[in-house]
């Protein structure tokens, strides 16, 4: 068991003792168990799987952020997080459509990397929602 808190700029999303955590690190998914070595890594949009005290598995989608593990305390700091069951499919589809439309839109100053990231995030949410 170790303590996990998932924090976004809006609120503390999740805070509990958990058995394991699987998070999308920038160099691939990584699993965290009790007594993990101290670690700081960047997080990319992807799926977070948490196994809580009663061995229940909780999945959620996250966007960019960071993960710090030290002394059996894991802190997952992300821009946005959603339970897989709460994901709004229509909204995600809409976000992809909007971003792709704007990418092909030549007019004005378009921030292509930002749009690409938006598409990536929305696709990630779609993927997780359909897995669930």
């Amino acid at each position, binding site marked *: 068991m170790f303590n996990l808190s998932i924090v*976004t700029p809006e609120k503390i999303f999740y805070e509990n003792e958990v058995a394991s955590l699987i998070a999308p690190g920038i160099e691939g998914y990584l699993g965290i168990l009790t007594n993990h070595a101290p670690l*700081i*890594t960047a997080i990319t949009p992807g799926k977070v799987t948490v196994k809580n005290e009663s061995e229940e598995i909780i999945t959620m989608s996250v966007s960019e952020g960071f993960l710090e593990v030290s002394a059996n305390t894991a802190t997952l700091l992300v821009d946005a997080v959603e339970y897989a069951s709460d994901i709004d499919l229509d909204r995600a589809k809409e976000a992809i459509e909007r971003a792709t439309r704007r990418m092909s839109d030549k007019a004005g100053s378009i921030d292509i990397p930002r749009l690409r990231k938006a598409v990536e995030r929305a696709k990630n949410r779609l993927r997780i929602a359909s897995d669930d």
Partner: protein
Amino acid sequence: MPTLREVKKRIRSTISTRQITKAMEMVAAAKLRKAQMRIMQVRPYSEKLTTILSHLSEAASGELVHPFFEKREVKKRTLVLVTSDRGFCGSFNSNLIRKANKWLGDQNRDDVELILVGKKGLDFYKRRQWNIVETFQDWSGNLDYTKARNLVDMLTKRFLDGETDEISVIYTQFLSTARYKICDVPYLPVDSLDEEHNEDEEKQKSNFDYIFEPSPEAIFKDIMPKYALTKMITALADSFASEHGTRMMAMGSATKNAGEMIDALTLQYNKARQAAITKELLEIVSGAEALKG
């Protein structure tokens, strides 16, 4: 002595003023609650972010490898002044502007640029010869993340492009409904990270030998823009909360004053009415006396 009608008119207008200030007080109270909640929401995130960052810099053996830390010889300075968009909040804006003027006092006009958040600051400085590069207005007392992000993007870009060597922010720190503190804080370059750290954390850190994925430099690159954004958002959230708090207090005392004024005027009105009645009676009585002859 004002006539009865005049007094009555004044009473009526004061009553409607009181109604307005009362309504404004309540609106401010509702907005204050929301703004306070915002502060509470951002706080854990910004605290954790600062913790990670300080662990990171600790582990990178004090070598702060990011352009945001780069201290250059200061030739050009930027001041970000956060005021409110609307008035009716007592001395809130004038205090802020006074602080900003003091800051600007000993600066050379050509080496300073202003970035103004909120209309009141703009109203003041547009007629003066300072170099205003950008303004961010119409927040209507709410923290708009997109706007805040634009502000931060602009600031960091100016700093990285070398258009400015030092950015400071003047804003109000929210203490309680009636109290705020005007702060003048350096924004970029980032100098110290552990200002918000308490004893426990001091003890706890530095004992760990962190693994970094991919590397401290890469994480710094990702984390610094977030840090800058969070710092600005915290400042803005505090400012908005102080604005609403001050407005609530100002409107509260205005309502109270209006009430006192109404009491005083009502007294005056009644006195005048009584005097008029007495006068009339006297006239009738003396008229009757005169007829008796």
